[in-house]
C-alpha cells in the first residue's frame, strides 16, 4: 500500500468511467446506424453543467449527491484494479457490499428533498430494483467467498491468477452467468432502466437536478458503472496482472452491456423483480450449493 495509490485508484476509475460514458453513446449510435457524438461529448456536457447556474431545493438536496459521490469514490479504493488497491488489506468484500449502497441511498435522500412526485416514483423503483438484484448478488458473493474460502478481494484475484479464472471453474461458472444476468439491473441500463425512464417519469430521481448537481450525479454514475464491472472482472475474469489487462477486460464486459442496452426495450418493475428473483437466484443457489459440497 502506497500513498500515491489513494489518488491513482479514483483517478483511473474517473477517467475510465467518463470514457465509458462517451464510448457507450458512440457505440449505441453506430448500432442504430447513426454517426453519433464525439467520444469526448460527456466532457463537454459536464463542463457545461458546471458552468450553468443551478437551482437547489434545500440542504439535503445538495448533501445527497455528495454522499453518493463520496460513497462511490471510497468503494473504488477497496477494489483491486490490476495491482492498484490502496485499501485491499482491510475489510474486503463485506465492506464493498455495504459501501455500494451509499450511491443509491444518497441519491434517494437528495431526490426526496425535491418533493417532486416523479422523483418519489423513481426512488421507490430504485429501491425495489435494488431489492431485486441484491438477493442474487449476495448469493453470488457468498458462493465466490465459499469457493475461494476468503473474503479478501485481493486473495480471490491472486487465487484465480495462480489457478483458473472463476468463469472457467465449474460451480462459479453458474455464478458468473447469474451475475451477468443482473449486470444491466446493477448498471441501471436497459432492459432495467426503469429508474431513470425519461419517457415515463421524466428521468425519475434526477427530475429536479440540473446544473452542477447533475454534473456530480453524472460523475457518480461513471464511478458506479466502473465499480460494478470491476467487481465482475475481479470475481470471474481473474482481475489483472497489471492495470492494462484489467482495463481491457473491463472494457470487454462493458461493451457487452452496451450491446444489450442498445437492442432491448424497457421492462416494468414487477417484471424486473420477477426476472431477477427467478433465473439468477436459481443459478446462484445451485452454484452456492455446489461450491459448498465440492469444497
Amino acid at each position, binding site marked *: 500500500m502506497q500513498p500515491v495509490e489513494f489518488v491513482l485508484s479514483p483517478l483511473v476509475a474517473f477517467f475510465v468511467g467518463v470514457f465509458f460514458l462517451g464510448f457507450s453513446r458512440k457505440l449505441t449510435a453506430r448500432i*442504430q446506424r447513426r454517426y*453519433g457524438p464525439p467520444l469526448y461529448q460527456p466532457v463537454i456536457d459536464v*463542463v*457545461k453543467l458546471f458552468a450553468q447556474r443551478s437551482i437547489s431545493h434545500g440542504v439535503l438536496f445538495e448533501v445527497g449527491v455528495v454522499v453518493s459521490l463520496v460513497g462511490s469514490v471510497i468503494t473504488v479504493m477497496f477494489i483491486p484494479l490490476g495491482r492498484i488497491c490502496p485499501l485491499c488489506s482491510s475489510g474486503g468484500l463485506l465492506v464493498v457490499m455495504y459501501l455500494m449502497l451509499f450511491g443509491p441511498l444518497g441519491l434517494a435522500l437528495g431526490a426526496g428533498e425535491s418533493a417532486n412526485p416523479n422523483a418519489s416514483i423513481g426512488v421507490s423503483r430504485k429501491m425495489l430494483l435494488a431489492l431485486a438484484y441484491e438477493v442474487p448478488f449476495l448469493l453470488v458473493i457468498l458462493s465466490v467467498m465459499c469457493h475461494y474460502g476468503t473474503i479478501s478481494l485481493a486473495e480471490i484475484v491472486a487465487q484465480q491468477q495462480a489457478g483458473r479464472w472463476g468463469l472457467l471453474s465449474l460451480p462459479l461458472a453458474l455464478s458468473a452467468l447469474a451475475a451477468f444476468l443482473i449486470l444491466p439491473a446493477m448498471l441501471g441500463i436497459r432492459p432495467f432502466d426503469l429508474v431513470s425512464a425519461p419517457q415515463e417519469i*421524466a*428521468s425519475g430521481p434526477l427530475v429536479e*437536478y440540473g446544473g452542477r448537481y447533475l454534473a456530480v450525479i453524472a460523475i457518480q454514475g461513471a464511478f458506479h458503472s466502473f465499480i460494478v464491472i470491476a467487481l465482475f472482472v475481479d470475481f470471474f475474469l481473474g482481475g489483472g496482472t497489471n492495470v492494462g489487462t484489467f482495463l481491457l477486460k473491463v472494457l470487454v464486459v462493458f461493451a457487452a452491456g452496451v450491446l444489450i442496452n442498445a437492442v432491448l426495450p424497457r421492462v416494468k418493475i414487477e417484471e424486473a423483480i420477477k426476472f431477477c428473483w427467478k433465473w439468477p437466484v436459481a443459478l446462484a443457489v445451485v452454484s452456492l450449493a455446489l461450491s459448498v459440497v465440492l469444497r
Partner: protein
Amino acid sequence: MDRADIVKALRGPGQWGHKYSLWAVYFCTGCGIIEIPPVITSRWDAERFGVLPMATPRQANLFMITGYVSVKTLRAIVRTYEQMSAPKYTVAFGSCPVNGGMYWDSYNTIKRIDKYIPIDGWIAGCMPRPEAIFIAVTKLWHMIDVGAATGWKRYQENYDHYKSNQDQVLGTFQERDEPQGGTVPVGECTPGTGLSG
C-alpha cells in the same frame, strides 16, 4: 465546427460547453411534434451536434417551441422557461410562434411569442424541414460565440415588461387546479379536482 479546438476550449470552457452541449426540451404544442422524432433519431441524428432531448426543463438549456401557442399553453411555456438553468436559449420553430401563421385571426392563439418570453432565434416555415433545426443550431453557435444569444439576460433585465405582457393575456385565465396566489394552504387541497375541468 471548432469543437475539437483545445486551445479555444481551454480559453473559455463554459462557452465551449454551452455551445456544443445543447440539451433541448421540445415543447410540442402542435404539428411540430412530427418533425422532431426524425431529428433526434437515426434519420438526421441530432446527437452528433451534441443536441439531446431532455425529459425535464431543469436539465435543459435549449427551449424549442414548435407549433402554435394557445393561451392555455402559454402558461406552461412560461413556467417551463422559468424552470430552466440560467444560460438558456429559446428557438421558435414554425410560422405559428412567429406571427400566428394560419391562425393569424384566431381569438385564442398567441401571435408573437417573443412578447411573453425572449426568443433567440426563429425558424420560419410551415412546417420547416428537419434540416432547418441544424441550421438553427449552427446559427445559435455563432450567436453564442459573438455574445448575441442573450435572451435570458433580457428576460432578467426586462422582467416587469414580460410579466405585464403575460398578465395581460393570462390574468383572466385561471387553471382549475391552481389556486390564486401560488401557495396552497395544506387543508384546502381537495383530491380529485385536477382533471375535472
